[in-house]
């Protein structure tokens, strides 16, 4: 299966975790793309940490409002019901428990849900931005990532080696190979990408995976 198709399945699967009425923050990169996989007129409120709730469709440069961006710098639009607010209010929403779900990228996720996605010492030190608070305080934290890094190594690891974004914060991992839940009993394999076997996923995962009895759903 070509990577682009696997990624489309990942995104479509992730979109199914967005329930009607949720307030959701989609991180830069892969997570932002989930929105394209929601049904039209789906009742969800997209938040961005630079001070907007209820983000409408992304606009091209010619239609863009120079003052209306999301935290990733994309030019976005409003909908009836959108609101703007300052940065303190924006993170009050996150830390105060009003963000139902965030989907974030990852460099590494550990077996107990530690997340590292902001710093590679010596190589990449851009600063944490809003990621720490999203990871630590959203009611549900889902990581969207390729299962393997560019060198073919598992991004799902027994212990993170990179500086943490937040400890024990990830609830679910959705990759191009599997859906994995992070629980008090460790990582549990929930779903497989169509065409893969349990053995293939276990082989690609350096952290221990629990596999429930019975047939796993495919996506």
């Amino acid at each position, binding site marked *: 299966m070509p990577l682009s198709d696997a990624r489309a399945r990942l995104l479509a699967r992730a979109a199914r975790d967005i329930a*009607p*009425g949720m*307030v959701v923050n989609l991180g830069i990169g892969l997570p932002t793309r989930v929105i394209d996989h*929601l049904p039209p*007129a*789906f*009742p*969800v*409120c*997209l*938040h961005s940490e630079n001070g*907007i*709730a*209820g983000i*409408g469709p992304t606009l091209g440069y010619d239609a863009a409002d120079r003052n209306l961006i999301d935290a990733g710098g994309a030019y976005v639009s*409003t*909908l*009836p*019901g*959108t*609101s*703007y*607010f300052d940065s*303190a*209010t924006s*993170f*009050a*929403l*996150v*830390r*105060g*428990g*009003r*963000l139902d779900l965030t989907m974030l990228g990852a460099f590494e996720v550990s077996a107990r849900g530690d997340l590292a996605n902001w710093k590679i010492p010596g190589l990449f030190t851009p600063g944490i931005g809003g990621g720490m608070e999203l990871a630590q*305080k959203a009611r549900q934290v889902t990581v969207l990532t390729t299962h393997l890094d560019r060198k073919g190594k598992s991004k799902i690891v027994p212990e993170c080696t990179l500086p943490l974004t937040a400890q024990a914060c990830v609830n679910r991992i959705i990759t191009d190979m599997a859906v994995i839940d992070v629980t008090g009993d460790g990582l549990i394999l929930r779903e497989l990408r169509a065409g893969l076997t349990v053995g293939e996923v276990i082989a690609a995962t350096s952290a221990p995976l629990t596999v429930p009895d019975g047939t796993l759903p495919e996506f």
Partner: protein
Amino acid sequence: MRFPDKTATLHDAIAEIGDGATIMLGGFGVPGTPFTLIAELVRQGQTGLTIIKNDANETGMGVDHLLAAGQVRRLITTHIGLNPRAIGLMNEGRLEVEFCAQGILAERIRAGGAGLAAIVTDIGLGTELAAGKQHVIIGGRDGVVETALRADFALLHAEVADPFGNLCYAATARNFNPLMATAAGRVIAETEALGPLGTLEPGRVHTPGPFVDRVVPLDALTEEYAVVRR
């Protein structure tokens, strides 16, 4: 994309509140006090409540009805000088009252809403309001730790709302309302006017919809909302 409709009936919105709940009430004097929500709370009769509100209103208004009905166990407030019943109940030991400096009450609520554990301030140092509170030294200076406040419910009064819960407050009716909107598990707003989504320009919204759980449109305003002729 569209947004969920949070409109609810007065009865249903208040029926979610159980005995023993902690409830924040917006308002500073008359402006911004959710008199209709309070009246329904009196009608339904939940008891053992902890109320967090700037003041205790005046005789025959708002909080006074809850006090008269014996529904309030504890009151966290800044000033109750206009409510003789509140002062009387406090003096008789039948109402537990915790006084805060007004801006510190605002900050404690805001801190709860912002998911903070506490703020550190020099307000109250050397007075009885700092007595018994945890202290911490910040940069060599003594500070009082004022813990964050959250509630089970916040009852608010808006001038204009939309069904998603975007709220706008009139004039000085804003006061504690937008702070409390961030600081409760469930936020119920009564509103004088309810318009469709888009009624409020995004830059005019005082309380963003994601903070609000229930919007109760008011059919009419009772006498309590009117100008008080003293």
